[in-house]
């Protein structure tokens, strides 16, 4: 009786866990595939063609820190923009003379470039942008990172999007491109692809959206009304999106492969881990700030709760799925229960398959040659990437628990780190 009772308990327990995981994975998959649900939805995720009229003025914030190597190129490219009314505000630190020099040289060359110096003792991106906010003269504030490659027609499209939709916020696409660099950069690129190409549009539609770190445009008055960015939050971009959408501001997302801001993946596995830790910790902070509780709809609040908890659920399911399958195969549970334990694995498999197709589409969209070896890397790398994500999630919980909420990467900045490792901390995915 005891053994039978134990078995029954085990059965019920793993069936419940399996079903929960199944629904989680199924919903995530459903959302991940949002943009491809119908051809009409896919068409609606793009920028609509600008009508030629340009009525908004832009203030483009460009926070730069130890990025003298790439900053000038980024400014030059931004200046090539076809839009006629914008200013670039480069934000540099008072302790960073090299970058300041590059910025001031650019400002001397072109009156549209201005320099703002951030004098905070402990520096981070939200503080830098808050420093610049009072100096913005444009109707719309846009944020870019110092190494971003921005399309010259982007501003014209964003201008049109603001006017044609009456939006308060427009989020453009950001895409990591160097999928061939390493096994994890392949998965990292694909994460961005699914996030900006598809999932973010669903969030916009549902009225709850964690914004990205750059290529994001906010009406200046709306931003000032919201007191800018939260200087204490590690995912200030996500936080801003959550705060704005929670009070009913209209957010519009548009993705055009020609118009995305191109970036590169972190230079090493460790920096990816740190970046992800920061985002996860940021998500946790946003969750605990409870701004999302103002969302009017129950479904919206549920989506918020779920989205902000995703990294941790992901870590959890990465551990549980293999365990569950092992239980089904090796423990003597009833066939029906064993069947149920396979459900999460099934959704994971479907997700996998869609990722392969996504990689193909990514290659097509960007005219990149995706070879067989990349598909193999994608599949083989899957479980290892899960381990990485789980590790980052656990680190985030640990750091948050210990009260360590400094900007990990920034605090490590020194001679041993090249600029490229600092700058890639932008969008939550």
């Amino acid at each position: 009786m005891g053994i039978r009772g134990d078995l029954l308990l085990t059965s019920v327990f793993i069936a419940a866990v399996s079903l929960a995981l199944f629904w989680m994975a199924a919903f995530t998959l459903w959302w991940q595939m949002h943009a491809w649900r119908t051809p009409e939805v896919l068409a609606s995720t793009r920028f609509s063609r600008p009508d030629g009229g340009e009525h908004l003025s832009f203030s483009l914030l460009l926070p730069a820190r130890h990025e003298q190597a790439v900053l000038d190129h980024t400014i030059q490219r931004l200046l090539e923009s076809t839009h006629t009314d914008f200013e670039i505000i480069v934000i540099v630190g008072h302790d960073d003379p090299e970058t300041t020099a590059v910025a001031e040289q650019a400002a001397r060359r072109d009156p549209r470039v201005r320099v703002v110096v951030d004098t905070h003792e402990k520096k981070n991106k939200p503080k830098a942008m808050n420093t610049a906010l009072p100096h913005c003269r444009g109707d719309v504030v846009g944020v870019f990172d110092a190494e971003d490659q921005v399309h010259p027609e982007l501003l014209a499209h964003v201008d049109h999007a603001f006017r044609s939709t009456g939006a308060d916020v427009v989020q453009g696409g950001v895409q990591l491109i160097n999928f061939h660099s390493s096994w994890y950069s392949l998965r990292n690129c694909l994460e961005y692809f699914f996030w900006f190409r598809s999932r973010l549009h669903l969030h916009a539609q549902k009225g709850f959206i964690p914004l990205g770190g750059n290529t994001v445009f906010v009406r200046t008055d709306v931003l000032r009304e919201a007191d800018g960015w939260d200087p204490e939050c590690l995912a200030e971009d996500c936080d801003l999106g959550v705060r704005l959408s929670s009070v009913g501001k209209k957010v519009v997302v548009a993705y055009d492969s020609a118009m995305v801001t191109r970036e590169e993946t972190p230079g090493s596995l460790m920096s990816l881990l740190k970046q992800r830790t920061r985002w996860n910790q940021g998500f946790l902070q946003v969750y605990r700030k409870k701004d999302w509780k103002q969302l009017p709809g129950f479904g919206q609040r549920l989506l918020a709760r779920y989205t902000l908890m995703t990294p941790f659920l992901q870590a959890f399911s990465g551990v549980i799925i293999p365990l569950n399958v092992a239980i089904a195969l090796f423990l003597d549970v009833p066939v029906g229960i064993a069947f149920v334990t396979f459900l999460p694995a099934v959704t994971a498999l479907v997700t996998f398959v869609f990722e392969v197709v996504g990689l193909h589409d990514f290659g097509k969209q960007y005219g990149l040659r995706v070879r067989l070896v990349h598909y193999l890397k994608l599949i083989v790398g899957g479980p290892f990437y899960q381990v990485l994500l789980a590790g980052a999630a656990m680190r985030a919980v640990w750091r948050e628990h210990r009260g360590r909420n400094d900007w990990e990467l920034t605090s490590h900045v020194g001679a041993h780190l090249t600029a490229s490792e600092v700058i890639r901390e932008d969008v939550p995915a």
Partner: protein
Amino acid sequence: MTSTLPAVTAAKVPAQRRPAPTTRPTDRTEPPRRLRSSRPDLLLCGVLLVAILVVQGWNIADYPTLSDDEGTYLAQAWAVQEGRGLAHYTYWYDHPPLGWIQIALLTWIPSLVSPGSMTVGSMRLVMLAVSAVSAVLVFVLARRLALPRWAAGLGMALFGLSPLSVVLQREIFLDNLAVMWTLLAFCLAASPSRHLWHHFGAGIAAAAAVLTKETMLVVLPAVVVTMWRHGHRDTRKFALTGAVTACVLIGFSYPLFALLKGELFPGGGHVSLWDGIKYQMSRPGSGFILDPGSGSYGVLHSWLYYDRVLPLGGLAGAVLLLATWRWSVTARALAGPALAVAVLALVAMRPSGYLPAMYVIGALPFLALVLAGATASVAHAVLRRRRGEGENRYVTGGRYALAAVLVLAAGAYVVPRWYDGDRTAVTADANAPYRAASRWLSTEVADPAGTRVLVDDALWLDLVHAGYRPGLGVIWFYKADLDPAVTRTMPHGWRDLDYVVASPTVRRDAADLPAVQDALRHSTPVATFGTGEDRIEIRQIETVAGGPR
């Protein structure tokens, strides 16, 4: 308020720059985007549905003759309902079990209300529901494949009212359920909204069809073709991948089930999926279908006996559509069903294959669709082809006269034949001997619980309700030879039995079953119902002096 570009209602209105659907079949009669809200469509479909239900439902229990297979599936559905596993004898992976699990679900409520109604004759009624769903799906599919309304109605009528359909769709065959799932897969594949999850659903429905009756596997390429034609360039790869993945994953649940039970591979003392498949693949062939004297030829003629219009006309229609692929929009729109007909015809032509009588059931909806499509194609050619603005009204009149002649000729050929066939179906009583045998065994045998009797599967549930012990008291006749669990209980062979009910099926199959043959030889008829080949004899086993009984 937040929203995607270009507006909040993005999902409902086509976006501004929505690319033209280049690959979608365009036809002169674009179906309404929502069939549900089209009154003429609903009306036509509803009227036809009532006609089909009346013709198929009237006299359903008495015609055609109860088939052994119907008894098998219903008895296994009963075993599922009773919680006796997937069959009341050892489930040996003869077919995937999903079919009779569905029958168990369908008959569950009626059998709760009246347990005694769980017999082949009365439970044929649930097949009416399956037929109804399939017939509606044929109409929907025809409309989604851009056939004009009248042609969709024609397809539905052909599918539901052909005497061949009426006979076969009345019977509790797994194929009828599988057809329903296959049609659902087609309808979802041709979904006008081209929704990713509709295509995903098509994959699931296709898997359900295959798990209901494995022969549906050969129709899957036609589902893929339909989906390809209806997909949009930008989302097609996701849609197709989703469908294939869903289908494969659900399909794999069957081997997974076997694996979890430890019955995937053969081994000592247990059945296995492997052996089941080996048995199905190595069934003795019934010969080339066009070789007079072969079993397949006989099966073909048994179909043509009921109706020639649907099988032969449908086949001709498929050939016509495939031949006019280059010119005819209709032909391209019906690529899926035409391909299904072609594949099913080719599979039936295998010289060494085994061709069961219910094989044609899987082809019926496609034959009907293809024939309706071919008719629409001909109608278009006669009435519209090369018709200019200022065509001479005599020529136009000639077109309509020709069309009228064709309609009358077709009607004159089809209507009398179908009238005869369907009249037989609603009036003939083919099952009186079965009912009488059932009544005799229920009333004339003193101690049913202690009596052992060999019967064919169609009568088995009747006797279970009459108080015989299921499995070892009332025995599927061939289990006496083939199931070790049964033969073990018959150490003295026929002497351990009391009765054998010699129905046509039992007499036919006894040739290969020595124990049954012995029982027949050592028994004498105590009651005979019907005459000639179709008679049913209840034979009592001779008592041998000094024997155990």
